[in-house]
């Protein structure tokens, strides 16, 4: 586990200022790791775009309004092919300086670079888990779990500091969206949890909606 004490709420031990990621990204040259990643992404983009350009006619499904063909002068493949063709050329153009950067060995490893990527990866994992659970557990319970996990990971250790928010925020969001804006959010597919959610929303409706 990486050191996350600096994300802690007021009252935690003081720590040295740390510039934001965006500020660092804007200020310095690519690290060797990022330079390699730049090459890889440009190469992958060039490869995918070239494949799409060549294979585009095979990616058009049959159907549509056939009689329209008599009037239309454009093939459905033409403009996408042009777009992906341009992308192929541009990705190759971007690949050249990226390879030169790697070969020249310019740039220095950034302090805590892997730690930063690891923290972002854990945040992404929490978000993916949230996306997978939201239809099963329902919006309210899944959001409670995600909020608690994220707040804990970001350094909140005092349960009294985040448990009220963990409970109130998802219930409030679902109530506002469902009962005031008439936009439904996923109800838990576990019936016992769903019944509790319904009861809470009914109670809030009786209190706040005349």
């Amino acid at each position, binding site marked *: 586990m990486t050191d996350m004490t600096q994300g802690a709420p007021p009252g935690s031990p003081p720590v040295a200022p740390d510039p934001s990621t965006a500020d660092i990204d804007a200020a310095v040259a690519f690290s060797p790791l990022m330079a390699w990643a730049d090459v890889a*992404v440009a190469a992958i983009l060039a490869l995918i775009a070239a494949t799409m350009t060549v294979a585009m006619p095979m990616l058009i499904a049959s159907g549509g309004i056939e009689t329209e063909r008599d009037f239309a002068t454009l093939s*459905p493949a033409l403009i996408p092919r042009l777009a992906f063709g341009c992308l192929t050329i541009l990705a190759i153009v971007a690949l050249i300086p990226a390879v030169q950067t790697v070969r020249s060995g310019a740039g220095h490893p950034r302090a805590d670079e892997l730690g930063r990527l690891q923290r972002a990866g854990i945040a992404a994992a929490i978000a993916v888990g949230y996306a997978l659970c939201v239809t099963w557990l329902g919006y309210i319970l899944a959001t409670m779990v995600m909020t608690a996990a994220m707040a804990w990971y970001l350094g909140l250790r005092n349960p009294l500091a985040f448990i009220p928010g963990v409970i109130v925020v998802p219930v409030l969001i679902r109530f506002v969206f469902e009962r005031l804006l008439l936009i439904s959010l996923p109800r838990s597919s576990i019936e016992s949890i769903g019944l509790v959610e319904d009861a809470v929303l009914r109670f809030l409706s009786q209190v706040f909606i005349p």
Partner: protein
Amino acid sequence: MLETLGQSIDLLLRWDIYFYISIGLVIGMFVGAMPGLTTILAMAVLLPISFKLEPMLGIPFLIGVYKGGIYGGSIPAILVGIPGTGASIATTFDGPPLTRQGKGRKALEMALFASVIGDAASDIITLLMIGLIARIILLIGPPEVFAIIIFSLILIASVSGESGIKGAIAACIGVGLGFVGKESVDGEARMTFGLDALVGGIPLIPLVIGIFALPEVFEAVESRTRSFINESVDPAKSGERLRWHEFKNSIRTICRSTIIGTGIGMVPGVGQVVAAFIGYSAAKRASKHPETFGKGELDGIAGPEAANNAVNGPTLVPLLTLGIPGDNITAILLGAFVAHGMRPGPQIFNEQGALVYAILIAAILANLIFVVLAYVLLRPFAKAIQLPKAYLVPVILALAFVGTLSTGSASDLGIMMAAGICAYILKKLRYDLAPLIIGFILAEPLELRLSQSLLYARGDVLDFFFLQRPIASFFLLAGIAWIVGMIYVRFRRKPGEAFVP
């Protein structure tokens, strides 16, 4: 006309008009500030409510929602880099850097004043020149729209980020993704890879939320700062208000962007997104210190915000004079006009001139109300961003999911997550993601207008575009000149020198 204007002023002497405008503005601002909730959605939901009101209350109420929504989108764009609406994508360039410097409130106030001035000025121009604007609109057909879209894409790709090539790559990816699903001309499905979910195309809102919200969340977690504001910023100075001299320095930018937005507003189907980018680009090019753009420059807020709001006035012209809505918002307004017994078209000024002018004047006055309302409501937003990230990040993530779930199905969450992770990687490699979304939005109209233009051309494409359609040829040649200029500047630039298109 003066007599009609006099009658319309009589219609405006009622307090309840301003009450309903205020409610509309607050609702619009709230909706615009929520990623995933669109102004169109709010107007569609509130349309039946407006039917129950008389025309002089119901239509200004909807116009209030529209105006509030466009400004509301800039609030999350400035504070956390998540555009509440497409119109505020360009505001994400300088908004978050200003927030990190503790100038979030300054940026919000600059956005407010620029929005209100741009909107009010374009409304006044519309009111005074409605006949002339209608005649100009009639000159703009599919070839002109196609040429303007091409020019806009070139401009947007070149102006954003530090690398024109990476901006162009992002725009091409966006255009390519925009072609997934049913083709606009004859409905043939493309690039669906056998997935039924893709036949309708990639949905915009999960894509926008994934591209803008998730990378912000991941970056917020990866950085060790306690809040979104840099810890080197003096807390006493964080949350400072906009000073008069700062606003005065941006007046020229606001005026320029207002003219740009009003001009773009006359082109049906192009809209606020393109206007905001061109406004930003023009502000950057005219600046004495273009290198500060993207790093926290107030002109970078004033430019796009004045331009995207200045689009509002002229978009009403084709609706009122020809009965043709230029976009989805004006289509909803058309529904409101018809439901209230008004028939937009050439005769509307003879039949119901006083009412139409009264509505246009109410739209102008709505800006004055908005300054007061928004100025009061901005304070809690500016304060909220000072909370620790441990509180804000989960809320942002929960709202991002709500935005996706509220407009689509749970399967859209997959699109949002995939877009978010790819966007994070691209952002780390300094690809600007705004051209990707603009390319995505403009892909369909681009193909449709080109297809229509080729039908008009009857095989003689060059002669048609360059001899018969001067406006289209102007924009196409300007686009070519822009690319040539970029290449020329790129090769003349010394290492380390900032690129200014």
